[in-house]
């Protein structure tokens, strides 16, 4: 696997800041807006954005986490793990503006499941999508993000990984490309 850093820790921080200001442009003081991170890796994005937003706004921003396992469209079709993660939405989303947050937007299937899962909690006024990385031109469904950290053009054989200071030791986004003889 060939490894290429497409967002280093300095740019990573700038990107998070920019996303926060874009959110504030649309949602002002977040009085009627909540952020919901998709399990598992969207939660890291939400945690970071929440603390940054709260620093800028000087007030609490409501955040939750949403697990989409039971809403996936590939149950019994893959060998993927069945074990779900925790859903924690301890506020009412009825008539709220919801920003769904994930780390990488790829086929759009996770977001489709996320929308389904979200609607089990009520009827939001509006739903938007924020993603740290958008793997453009790889969509299976007509889903696009409203806020994008970094857009990349990738091949199916490539893999994009968002790494975190708290988990992997450094904030960065890495693109893994298989060596030509592996392809």
């Amino acid at each position: 696997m060939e490894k290429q850093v497409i967002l280093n820790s300095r740019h990573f921080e700038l990107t998070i800041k920019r996303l926060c200001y874009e959110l504030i442009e649309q949602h002002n003081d977040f009085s009627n807006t909540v952020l919901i991170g998709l399990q598992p890796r969207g939660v890291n994005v939400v945690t970071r954005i929440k603390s940054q937003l709260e620093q800028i706004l000087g007030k609490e921003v409501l955040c939750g986490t949403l697990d989409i396992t039971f809403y996936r469209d590939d149950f019994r079709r893959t060998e993927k793990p069945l074990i779900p993660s925790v859903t924690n939405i301890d506020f009412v989303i009825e008539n709220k503006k919801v920003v769904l947050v994930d780390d990488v937007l790829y086929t759009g299937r996770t977001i489709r499941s996320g929308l389904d899962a979200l609607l089990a909690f009520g009827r939001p006024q509006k739903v938007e999508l924020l993603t740290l990385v958008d793997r453009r031109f790889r969509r299976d469904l007509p889903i696009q993000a409203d806020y994008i950290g970094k857009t990349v053009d990738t091949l199916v054989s490539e893999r994009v990984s968002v790494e975190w200071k708290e988990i992997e030791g450094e904030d960065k986004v890495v693109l893994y490309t298989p060596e030509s003889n592996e392809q």
Partner: protein
Amino acid sequence: MNNNLSVEHLTGIKDLTRQDIELIFKTADNFKDVINRPIKKVPSLRDITIANLFFENSTRTRLSFELAEKRLSADVVNFSAASSSVKKGETLIDTVNNILSMKVDMVVMRHPNPGAAKFLSERIGAKVINAGDGTHEHPTQALLDAFSIREALGEVEGKKVVIVGDILHSRVALSNIYCLQKLGAEVMVCGPTTLIPKYIHELGVKVEHNLRKALEWCDVANMLRIQLERQDIKYFPSLREYSMQYGLTKEILDSLPKEIKVMHPGPINRGVEITSDVADSKQSIILQQVENGVAVRMAVIYLLAAKIERH
């Protein structure tokens, strides 16, 4: 942690590993969250059809299974022996094969004969869940009981559980013994000598005939019903005498050195094995057991359905 059950059917707790039980509990935690949402339904089993075959009466278990199936979006067909061709002399295999021809993927069965679920699982293509087979096993009841203990006390490992009553005729008792032991709990059975199976100590359980001593030892008391419908002879002089010796009253409960939890798999015979004020007390987790039953059954069905091959 392994993401798959080690079994293809749930015929008894005896066949499960501790990892299986922990996987079921972890999945049930998530389903408990789901059934407390405004929309208590997930679309996972949209393309699965489940038949509930009840060759023996049941209210709670059948409702609980049906609700679990519906909340997973499965299609459900119900069958009860009282209104069926079984009365006209059809065999179990014929009945089930007829139902399977209608493209059913999973069968939940209660049957008066011990081993019926295993017998069926070896002969049909669909997944089988045992919802009680005679006096043998009732695995989902044991799972929900242990899940409720875990919820009430934090964990099952190291806890002391006494099962009181008609151990001889109880499938709940046997499944509970297997399940609790696999999770590392200590189990005692308590009841009159005639209602305790002779060699039960070989399962590694303590045997006690004095209710007070048993209650002083335990953290949780699981009170069972006297199964008069399975008793062809008299095992004790009278229900009143049984109740005086083995009925759990508020007086005994309040006189114990520590606050124990009280469980009951239902249906309760108020005033026989347990008095009304105990059943309704804050130490009783009987209604939590019923709520957890739906979540645990959703977990079992979901995990087994994951193993159904696509046509």
